[in-house]
């Protein structure tokens, strides 16, 4: 009897101890705040873990870097085909090990191909965290190319490329990027079928060997994650990078920010799309937010000058311009885009130019500045409720506070360096507002729609437009 009591007391003690240990292990993570853990694995993969225990699933972003400055039509075709063969769901016959693993992981993934990176983002349940490191290993050591599938990917390239993605924006970004870095290798088409046909499997394998390696990538994980657990798993499963040295990137060169209008001919009944690109400072630069404020003062809805002018002059139907920011290593690209009637195209482009020029005589005013600042903070707060919103921005908010500290909230304190004069100065420097009277206009404009209808409606700007087709 006394033995039984002793044993039961012992059990109770151990149970309490167990419970206490478990509580201690999870106590900091129950606070409901996000924490950043940052490390680089012995195989060279930088990993950032945003531990957020209110998020009941895990979001992962693997970014594999490409050398956008050295790209040409051939390498573009190789990259597109490699990614398609690895990740396109419709090409999963015969099935590859990677496709099976992705399916078991939940199959909620998407791949975005940009000029400087391939971004693979996925969501999965916490119980799939263990298999995730094996999936990473499979991505970095992918060898399951299949000739039949490869040939099919070339045959069905365009139908697969245009499916389930915002291909208009993807192509527009690529065209603008190439114009900016002075490596515009296109002649009259985006990607020719004959270029695709020339690619062979050996080129795809060699591409993967050179680029899909842990020391040429970055992994961001967000969710209810024990960072030490995932670090151990990744260390265990990640392959050694190939002995082949990482290719040196082309040195950074001055950006060609001169004006260019590119017309991409697409046979579609939809309204044409306008993408207006401007180069802005890199995301970690102090001039980035002032630029964003200035851009809002110009393109923003409803307070932006372009929208107000449209309304006041009753020129068009009051088009709302959307803005996206595309991040690159050395700079960012502000992409202001909208769809409008063919008849309004030229008026809109001329109006944008006119308002940009006005910046030199009428810089951003106090009210515009306050409105833009207010919008910028509010928008960031609203968007931050999305689990995958601007993870890089979230990570950068930890900078300066040291790793493992709680993230600062988005609020006015973020903008203490963003004075009105700073905005005005940045807009002058970056948009060239003061040199607007000079001969060189800035901004790359990509128009996507029926080339005939676009060119017919561009009377004054016709000579500036470069026409090209999809294939």
């Amino acid at each position, binding site marked *: 009897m006394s033995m039984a009591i002793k044993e039961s007391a012992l*059990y109770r003690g*151990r*149970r309490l101890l*167990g*419970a206490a240990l*478990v*509580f201690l292990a*999870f106590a900091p993570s*129950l606070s*409901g*705040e*996000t924490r950043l853990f940052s490390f680089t694995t012995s195989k060279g993969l930088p990993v950032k873990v945003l531990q*957020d*225990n*209110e*998020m*009941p*699933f895990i979001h992962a972003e693997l970014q594999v870097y490409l050398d956008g400055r050295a790209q040409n039509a051939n390498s573009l075709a190789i990259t597109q085909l490699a990614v398609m063969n690895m990740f396109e*769901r*419709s*090409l*999963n*016959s015969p099935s590859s090990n990677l496709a099976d693993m992705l*399916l*078991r*992981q*939940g*199959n*909620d*993934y998407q791949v975005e191909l940009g000029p400087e990176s391939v971004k693979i983002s996925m*969501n*999965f*349940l*916490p119980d*799939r965290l263990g298999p995730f490191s094996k999936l990473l290993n499979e991505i970095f050591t992918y060898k399951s190319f299949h000739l039949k599938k490869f040939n099919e990917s070339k045959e*069905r390239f365009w*139908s697969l490329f245009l499916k*389930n993605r915002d291909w208009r924006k993807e192509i527009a970004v690529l065209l603008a990027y190439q114009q900016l870095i002075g490596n515009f290798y296109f002649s009259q088409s985006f990607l020719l079928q004959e270029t695709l046909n020339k690619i062979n499997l050996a080129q795809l394998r060699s591409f993967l060997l050179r680029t899909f390696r842990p020391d040429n990538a970055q992994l961001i994980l967000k969710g*209810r994650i024990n960072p030490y657990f995932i670090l151990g798993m990744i260390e265990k499963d990640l392959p050694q990078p190939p002995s082949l040295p990482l290719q040196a990137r082309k040195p950074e060169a001055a950006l060609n920010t001169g004006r260019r209008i590119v017309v991409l001919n697409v046979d579609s*009944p939809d309204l044409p799309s306008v993408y207006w690109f401007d180069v802005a400072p890199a995301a970690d630069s102090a001039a980035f937010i002032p630029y964003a404020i200035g851009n809002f003062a110009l393109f923003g*809805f*409803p*307070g932006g000058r372009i929208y107000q002018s449209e309304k006041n002059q009753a020129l068009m139907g009051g088009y709302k311009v959307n803005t996206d920011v595309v991040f690159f290593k050395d700079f960012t690209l502000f992409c202001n885009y909208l769809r409008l009637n063919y008849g309004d195209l030229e008026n809109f482009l001329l109006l944008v130019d006119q308002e940009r020029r006005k910046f030199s005589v009428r810089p951003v005013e106090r009210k515009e500045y306050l*409105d833009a600042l*207010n*919008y*910028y*903070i*509010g*928008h*960031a*707060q*609203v*968007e*931050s*409720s*999305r*689990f995958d919103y601007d993870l890089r921005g979230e990570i950068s908010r930890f900078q300066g506070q040291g790793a493992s500290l709680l993230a600062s*909230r*988005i609020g006015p304190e973020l903008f203490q360096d963003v004075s009105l004069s700073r905005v005005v100065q940045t807009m002058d420097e970056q948009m060239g507002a003061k040199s607007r009277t000079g001969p060189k206009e800035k901004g790359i404009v990509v128009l996507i729609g029926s080339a005939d209808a676009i060119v017919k409606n561009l009377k004054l700007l016709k000579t500036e437009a470069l026409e090209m087709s999809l294939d």
Partner: protein
Amino acid sequence: MIKARLLCWLLLVPLIPLSAQSLTVSSFDLPNGLKVILAPSGNSQAAAVCVYHMHGARSDPADGRGIAYLYQYLMFDGNENLEPYDHVLFIGKMGGVVSGRVSYDNSVFYEMLPAQEINVALWLESERLKSLRLRDANIDFHKNQIFNRISRLWEANLGFKAQTWVSSKVFEGLPYEFPLYGDLNRIPSLGNERIRENYPNFQNLANILLIIAGKFDISELRNGINKFFQDIPPGRRSASPVFNAQNQRKSPVLKNWVVPGLKKSMAVFGIKAPAKISYNYMYFDFLRYYLTDARISRLNHILNTVNKLDVEIESSFTDYMEANCLIIQISHPKRINLEKARFVLASEFQALASKPLGNSEVRAVRSLMEIDLLKGMLSPEERCQRIGEYFHMFGELNFFDVQLRRLRRITSYDVQESAKKYLLKENQVVLNVYGN
């Protein structure tokens, strides 16, 4: 033994935040009858204010179909204190988002905005509940806009026309039989007086839920709600809505249209699916994911990857409370491909009904559904809508745990049973559209 208990503890601890998140939904009633539902979430800097009307197009009088759909637009036209589109401008200026839609069973209007500005959204919503600008000019403007837009769509988009016909056949005899906008040709002649008279039914406070999700301070929020909503006159309490899950169809419908000059033939399949209130809904939803969700898309796999038919596949799902319709549209320039596709589709439906899916497939689809459910719970506006719908259907607030538990328990047997019931030929309406 100790190890097992420790393991249980370890397994339980990660669940704490999830349960806490789902259990914090609470509600209270204002003296005027407005039900307020609060779903806080600590780790967000945004809040969603949602006005959920338990009133939709199905409540329109038979000779006034389309009135509720008009309110969708009139709700943004302001009142004596607000100008048209002030909602959009006020919320847009602070970086937020405004949206609203009228459906058959309900109507939902919401604002997503920075948490500290929540009172602005409360004020805007209270203004909308107090009065609306229902002048002839406004109403006529929107009647014309709707008429022109739908007419254009009707003329230019054969797919829209075909899908409208198919869903009207699937829902024969149900409140969902007629389009949301009613009879297109009768829109311009809808009487403005009738529209104004019907408005108090739509804005009846007794049928409205005010749902707030995201970050907020409860006492401040209560003050705000009292300040803006307590003066709104109470509505007339009507009987709680009773939904009846409708059965599947008993006989198939097959119809052919010949459209001269058509470049792409198409086949539109309408499958009558279980009601949202039905126990079978989740099992059919599983089938829908499996067959049509772009991330799994079994249909794309069997039609295009395996059989190389190169057909275009589009699908849509209605998501109504008493019955639903899954529409699958397959198109291709060559009629022979379409015929083959039809045969492959029928075989696939047959296979799903005759043998259970493999465990790995069931697990994959279940994971995907669970991830989507969890994503929905993280998004304040979607959370509001789901809470509203669940309360509307079942009168309960905390549905999340129940849904999640049921979802995790779906087996291949459940899916097979659902396929047997709903993928039958008798339960389908098929429309073929050919060129001559």
